[in-house]
């Protein structure tokens, strides 16, 4: 199933003392997204309660949930990139030596960085365009371009994370298994 064991991957990221600032940045992003989701849950619950007790729901709660979802998706990304949370199939490459697997992973991770860079570049362009339109959401009047800001930041930071960790894997993959070194 598309999920992974809670917390089990944290250790892998944390065991790289060199990138601790990057890790913390990703963690802050993920926490901010998580708090936004949690705040949305509180607000929607309040809205439901108000509706049940006849006060009418909170105006625009529907829109707020949509905005939070977009922000979450963007802010969650870098942490997932850092902790190698993206699913892959390792069954057919398990015969490779550990260093080879690591180098291959590093190569894909660098490509991942390239992919996120392109998405980030286009989103930055999208931000500009939407900003030019000056669109606002229907009920809350929230400027739509603002939701492009976390999107650009999240994909940009993911690109950075992917480049740094990917190159690290490529380099250290040659030298041996850095996981055992670090531990």
């Amino acid at each position, binding site marked *: *199933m598309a*999920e992974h064991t809670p917390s089990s991957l944290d250790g892998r990221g944390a065991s790289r003392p060199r990138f601790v600032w990057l890790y913390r940045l990703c*963690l802050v992003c993920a926490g901010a997204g998580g708090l936004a989701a949690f705040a949305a849950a*509180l607000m929607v619950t309040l809205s439901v309660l108000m509706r049940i007790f006849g006060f009418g729901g909170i105006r625009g709660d529907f829109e707020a949930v949509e905005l939070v979802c977009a922000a*979450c998706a963007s802010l969650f*990304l870098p*942490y997932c990139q850092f902790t190698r*949370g993206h699913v892959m199939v390792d069954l057919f490459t398990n015969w490779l030596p550990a260093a080879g697997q690591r180098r291959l992973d590093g190569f894909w991770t660098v490509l991942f960085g390239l992919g996120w860079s392109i998405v980030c570049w286009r989103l930055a362009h999208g931000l500009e365009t*939407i900003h030019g339109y000056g669109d606002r959401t229907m009920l809350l009047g929230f400027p739509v371009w603002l939701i492009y800001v976390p999107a650009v930041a999240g*994909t940009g930071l993911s690109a950075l994370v992917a480049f740094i960790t990917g190159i690290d894997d490529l380099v250290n993959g040659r030298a041996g298994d850095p996981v055992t070194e670090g531990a």
Partner: protein
Amino acid sequence: MEPMAIALGMIVILLALIFLRMPIALAMGSVGAAGYILLGGSSSLIFYLDTAWVDKFMSYELAIVPLFILMGHIATRSGISAKLFGASNAWIGHFRGGLAMAAVAGCAMFGSISGSSLATASTMARVALPEMRKHGYSGALSAGSLAAGGTLGILIPPSVVLIIYALLTEQNIVKLFLAATIPATIAVIGFFIAIAVFVRLFPEQGPNHAPIPYRERFRAVLGIWHIVGIFVVVLGGIYGGFFTPAEGASVGVVLTLLVGALSGGLTFRDLIGSLIDTAAASAMIFAIVFGADIFNVALALSRMPTDIAAWFGQSGLPPMTVMLAIVVFYLIMGCVMDSLSMILLTVPVFFPTVMALDFGLTPEHTALWFGIITLVVVEMGMITPPVGMNLFVISSMAKHIPLKTIFGGTIPFILSELLRIILLIAFPALSFWLVDLVTG
């Protein structure tokens, strides 16, 4: 180049890259982008990428995913699983194989507040494995029952896989949740029977022990009333039309947090930890959803899904043969692929095909039926070796049980699952009868 040839090339290259360890989201996104450029030109891809990310995720429906994941993670950290296992153990634990059945029952209850299979398997294993070991249960039976029980996490609503299926096929999420109820019940009964037969054949693997007094049994049940309450409020509210799935998930987050904080000793640290866990699990799903979106838009440009559907519609092949072929394909792919990626990749092609065939059902019934079959089949992929994620989770938690023993332990459950799939295919009404009853 022929659009059809490009589409086929995309699929072949995609599979090759996935098997070469490329992260699935990246593989789908990059192959999709390449196909998009060949079929629609690079300027239209660039135009699409300007807004695609935000358009995709500024979605009320997709917001259900992180909310239900958050609810499940809070539940995981709040010690709810120990209470659930305790209550079912109190009633059936003393029978032969009873602890394994209690683990399955605990998983089923946990699954009703969690949409995740791995979380269900791991959280229940933490409490049930030591108990089973203490009472002399074999590694095969303990691991097998927990791995199989874990699949109830995605089968019993809320289910992340069903939410994604609903979005891909534009079906009603509430109806799909309802549709999964009877198949999930059959799964629980099937697992119970599998355990009962297994301990009859190998009595030493799951010995019985002294029952506990009734007074304590009732106390254990009273200890879980608030957990049952969450389930009743959240799913009851959704089914009863009192609130939308996103509202239900939000209420569920708050209720689970309250229950955890008041009774389970959930701390502020645990809450922050749940938020971070939610970030990791959701980002992985969102990345795949985005990659699959690029891939599927490109595939749609080639018209391959509609062409294939039309071809099957006119081919005169018996619809059931096609359905069986799809199921066999899923079972084989499920052995090596991750379930969400599989759904995102195949449903856009298979769904129109199935809808073009005449099973003698209404379109809505066909959609519900196919959704449930897809869910059940990919869910079975979680426990089929060599790549069954649940097996690895159990294995990582039970170092004393060799992986080979765990694989062996799943055999009775895989057999029970196969029987259930045959049942669900043979009697489509099992997947929509309840939906019709509730929604009229």
